[in-house]
């Protein structure tokens, strides 16, 4: 009935939202289906950030524990289900990276790793991101992508690209600012 590794390349947000609603009601079958639908996608996101399989699976498991415990705080009127889930995975990955770098006790960071779900204009519309991305310089785009997709810090991006730290910071800062201005026009 459920393929172990089934995933849909494009996450269907309405379907995910209804699964999350049932998960909030402690429906274990819905939880399993949510896992089947999303785990491979989310593991892919996690692996790019933390770099190792074992850490990525740890982040995935932590995230699913949070999905189970916090599904009732997800509101489809306020955010897309895929965004909510991916954000949880990413925050968890960033926490795990920090933990492995600094050996911080995880309890300290565990509780704040939920994405926020607040109403904001255009929450449900597909963001008109592509034309706005085109307005960025190649360096801005690359730095933002390295930070978001690979979880790299300013310093790591600087080392990786052989660019001075200050330049990296300003590319990212100005890139984000331009993105916002473009999206809100």
């Amino acid at each position, binding site marked *: 009935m459920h393929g172990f590794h089934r995933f849909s390349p494009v996450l269907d947000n309405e379907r995910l939202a209804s699964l999350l609603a049932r998960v909030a009601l402690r429906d274990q079958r819905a939880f399993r289906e949510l896992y089947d639908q999303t785990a491979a996608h989310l593991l892919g996101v996690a692996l790019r950030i933390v770099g190792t399989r074992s850490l990525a699976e740890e982040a995935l498991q932590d995230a699913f524990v949070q999905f189970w415990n916090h599904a009732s705080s997800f509101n489809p009127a306020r955010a897309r289900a895929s965004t909510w889930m991916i954000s949880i995975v990413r925050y968890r990955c960033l926490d795990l990276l920090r933990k492995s770098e600094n050996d911080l006790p995880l309890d300290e960071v565990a509780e704040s790793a939920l994405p*926020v779900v607040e109403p904001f204009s255009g929450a449900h519309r597909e963001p008109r991101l592509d034309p706005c991305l085109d307005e960025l310089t190649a360096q801005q785009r690359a730095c933002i992508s390295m930070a978001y997709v690979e979880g790299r810090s300013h310093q790591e991006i600087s080392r990786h690209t052989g660019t001075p730290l200050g330049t990296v910071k300003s590319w990212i800062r100005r890139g984000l600012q331009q993105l916002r201005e473009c999206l809100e026009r």
Partner: protein
Amino acid sequence: MKITNDRMRDALCAEYVLGTLRGPARRRFMRLLQHDVGLRQRVAFWEETLVSFARGTAPVSPSPQSWAAISRRLGLAEPRTQSRFRPIGPLRYWLAAVAVVLAVGLSMLSPLRERFMFEPDVRVAITDDARQALWIIEADRNRNRLRVRTLRDIPVAQDKSLELWLLLADGSAPVSLGLMPQTQGAELELQPRADLRAGNGFAVSLEPRGGSPTGRATGPILHVQTFGQTT
């Protein structure tokens, strides 16, 4: 850390979501986030914007141990899909029949006043986001009776109803207990078909008028309130 400037605030939100805000600054920001709605709205904007960067990420199938670890950590029951198809043995039929006969017999013997007795052993308040109580739900699990009192007017759209669900302790799909009253002072008494003793919580979901057409919650869950197995 005092953040007054809008542009500065927005930059912090973006770098928090991006992950480049790190160390003590990240922790301070996370604390601010808990109390600042405006900041949370900006973070939500950036979450929804930057998530597009994850689009190109290739999926990777998790190992089977991942699901096992998750379900162990959450104490989930083994999937019961197999038992659904297992033929029911004749002994079970007999036990069920005996149980029905006993139940009918006992109900005829019990005194009339018992029908009106209500001694709740569970009492929970369903609250809104601002922690104001909307309903008080009391359950007498021995008599399998439920009483709902409505403390405030709870308006919903014309074409919607609020449905009450019993969360089951064994993790199987929640069962509907009925529709919630929505006018202040309204009381509702229910004798649900579902066994309240099997439950460990209530949830309220927003459904099409008249309740979920599928028998499962279909709309957003507005409230969840759990209670202990024994009180």
